[in-house]
């Protein structure tokens, strides 16, 4: 089957849907595809958290203040033009979502704004109760339904982007339910596939966040940037077992109520790790990279909780206040056997977000003509560490921008589709066989353990080199010919395609991490403990003839391709 559109958008989270709405508004015909259900997969729907924008509803604020906090969190590596775009255009998108009835929580007549760590003032909006992501997803799905001109197709897994004469001209995909190979012809293509947290054993995102877009972009010839910077969320839920909740749900509890982080000696330890550039609101002390460091250090020193993290306690807080603030959530916790009045829970760092990604300019253009990227899939706006609240904002802002620019460009282009250019990908898919009997679901679990153990928040040369060796071995095992059963909704083929992407992305992260011989933001090395001014540079990564090539750039260099 062959489908055509002006603009093809891969990934239907907040960034992809915003791109679709704006590309349609600009007059382009739009095809929005997702490997799962439209507007339900990926990270957006999982976000129970807050969204940062300088609305100035609670006290005066300005995008420049938000930018200053974003750049400080990024530890010198932000692409300031991209960061500024998030801060300047964020408020407009937040208000647009408000008009679309997302239901931002109110503080009297004003949109409520809370003070999240790393921000200099209350700046983060949310939807009660812990419902920000589901509300954002529902609102954007409603906008899609009101725009029937946008063609949406779920259960469609993009295998590769087709590049003809240096121009992205579409993609090859496989339809999960039927197994049918589908070719997608487009004048411009937008990657909006989100991050890579599935590379890690413990993560806060959905099962389709294996870094697809990074692999698609690399194989299409685009460079990635800042791939070594994986954000670990410091207080992901660890124990006791909790289901039906996002594992990062404890953060809003801490914003609103406080909450003590304790080690095995039942002593608060955050103050031991404070440093000069951390702004404190008195309740919640450390930015994410420092809190991750603090907990990991406590565990390494033998002061961890039984399950290998830290204790989080709300026992000092009036139980009526907890119930008043988080009533429905308290009931869900009780259904999980968790009673905050009488017990502590255990938390530990969990893979949460990727700062790195596809390298783009301020028009969201990659190195490849006609190929765009947006949302978490791009790198640059967050540098070495993302400020809390910026992820959904950037999804809106970059998504909208990508849609506008990709539509404008498509209006000036003829199709460049080429069957010849698609053939190698089609040939690969047609070469699928039942394979070696290796269980790919198990291989995938091995990859996640390897990344967690060797390329986690704390790294050293020996671990990283060992990881590169193991990744090469796993790549060889997985091979270059797809494994498949030939049955409808084939999870074996999906695992193979996922491993093909995840292994390439894991190699990119590990290669960049091994090269960066310092500690900065989310990249911490126990063999290079401090930040080194000589490393105030971004690393880029490109794929040529199967090999990854590292490059360097000074942050904020003009980089509009000729």
């Amino acid at each position, binding site marked *: 089957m062959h489908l055509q559109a002006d603009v093809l958008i891969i990934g239907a989270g907040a960034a992809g849907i915003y791109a679709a709405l704006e590309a349609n508004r600009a007059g382009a015909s739009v095809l929005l595809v997702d490997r799962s259900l*439209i507007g339900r997969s990926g990270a957006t729907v*999982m976000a129970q958290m807050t969204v940062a924008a300088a609305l100035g509803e609670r006290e005066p604020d300005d995008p420049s203040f938000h930018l200053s906090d974003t750049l400080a969190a990024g530890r010198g590596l932000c692409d300031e033009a991209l960061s500024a775009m998030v801060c300047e255009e964020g408020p407009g998108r937040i208000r647009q979502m408000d008009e679309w009835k997302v239901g931002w929580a109110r503080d009297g007549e004003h949109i409520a704004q809370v003070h999240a760590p790393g921000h200099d003032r209350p700046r983060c909006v949310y939807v009660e109760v812990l419902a920000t*992501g589901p509300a954002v997803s529902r609102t954007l799905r409603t906008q899609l339904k009101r725009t029937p001109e946008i063609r949406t197709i779920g259960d469609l897994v993009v295998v590769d982007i087709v590049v003809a004469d240096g121009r992205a001209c579409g993609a090859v995909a496989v339809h999960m339910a039927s197994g049918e190979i*589908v070719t997608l012809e487009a004048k411009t293509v937008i990657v909006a596939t989100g991050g890579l947290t599935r590379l890690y054993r413990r993560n806060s995102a959905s099962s389709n966040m294996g870094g697809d877009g990074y692999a698609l972009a690399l194989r299409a010839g685009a460079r990635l940037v800042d791939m070594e910077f994986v954000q670990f969320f410091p207080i992901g839920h660890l124990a006791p*077992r909790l289901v039906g909740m*996002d594992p990062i749900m404890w953060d809003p509890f801490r914003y609103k109520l406080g909450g003590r982080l304790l080690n095995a000696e039942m002593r608060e330890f955050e103050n031991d790790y404070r440093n000069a550039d951390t702004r404190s609101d008195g309740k919640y002390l450390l930015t994410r990279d420092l809190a991750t460091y603090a907990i990991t250090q406590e565990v390494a020193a033998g002061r961890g909780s039984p399950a290998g993290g830290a204790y989080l306690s709300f026992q000092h807080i009036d139980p009526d206040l907890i119930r008043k603030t988080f009533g429905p959530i308290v009931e869900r916790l009780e259904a999980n056997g968790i009673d905050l009045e009488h017990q502590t829970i255990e938390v530990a760092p969990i893979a949460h977000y990727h700062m790195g990604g596809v390298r783009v300019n301020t028009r969201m253009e990659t190195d490849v003509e006609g190929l765009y990227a947006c949302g978490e899939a791009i790198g640059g706006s967050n540098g070495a560490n993302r400020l809390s609240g910026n992820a959904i904002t950037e999804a809106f802002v970059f998504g909208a921008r990508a849609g506008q620019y990709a539509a404008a460009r498509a209006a000036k282009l003829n199709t460049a589709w080429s069957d010849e250019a698609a053939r190698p990908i089609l040939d690969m898919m047609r070469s699928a066989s039942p394979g070696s009997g290796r269980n790919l*679901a*198990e291989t995938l679990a091995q990859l996640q353990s390897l990344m967690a153990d060797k390329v986690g928040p704390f790294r050293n040369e020996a671990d990283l080199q060992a990881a590169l060796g193991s990744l090469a071995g796993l790549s060889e095992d997985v091979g270059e010919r797809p494994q498949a059963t030939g049955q409808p909704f084939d999870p074996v083929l999906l695992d193979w395609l996922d491993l093909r992407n995840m292994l390439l992305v894991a190699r990119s992260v590990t290669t960049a991490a091994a090269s960066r011989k310092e500690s900065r933001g989310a990249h911490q090395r126990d063999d290079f403990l401090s930040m080194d001014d000589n490393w105030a540079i971004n690393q880029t990564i490109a794929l040529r003839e199967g090999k990854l090539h590292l490059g360097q750039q000074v942050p904020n260099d003009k980089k509009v391709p000729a």
Partner: protein
Amino acid sequence: MKGVLEIQRGALGEEPAVERFEVEFESGQTILDGLRFIRRDQDETLAFRFSCINANACKECMMLVDGKTAYACTERLKEGVTKLAPLPKKLLVRDLVTEIAPPDERLELDS
């Protein structure tokens, strides 16, 4: 602890067959955990939908658990037998996967 999952399998148009899988689990683990263990340790061809894993956000893992519609990601594993089947009122794709997308998000292959 040990439980048994009796899973209705087969694609649309095939005679459905029930297969038994023994699953070892810890207290608090879910049906979805069990299905993922089966894929990793016993039969990687087993088809079921999920996206958000255990957050109950994506709503994709809906199926029949002992005859009642439930989310596999929040329903707990238990000792003894648990019967799993695809949603009866949705078009079957294969095993526990049904066509749950709204019609305007589907690929119509004859188009």
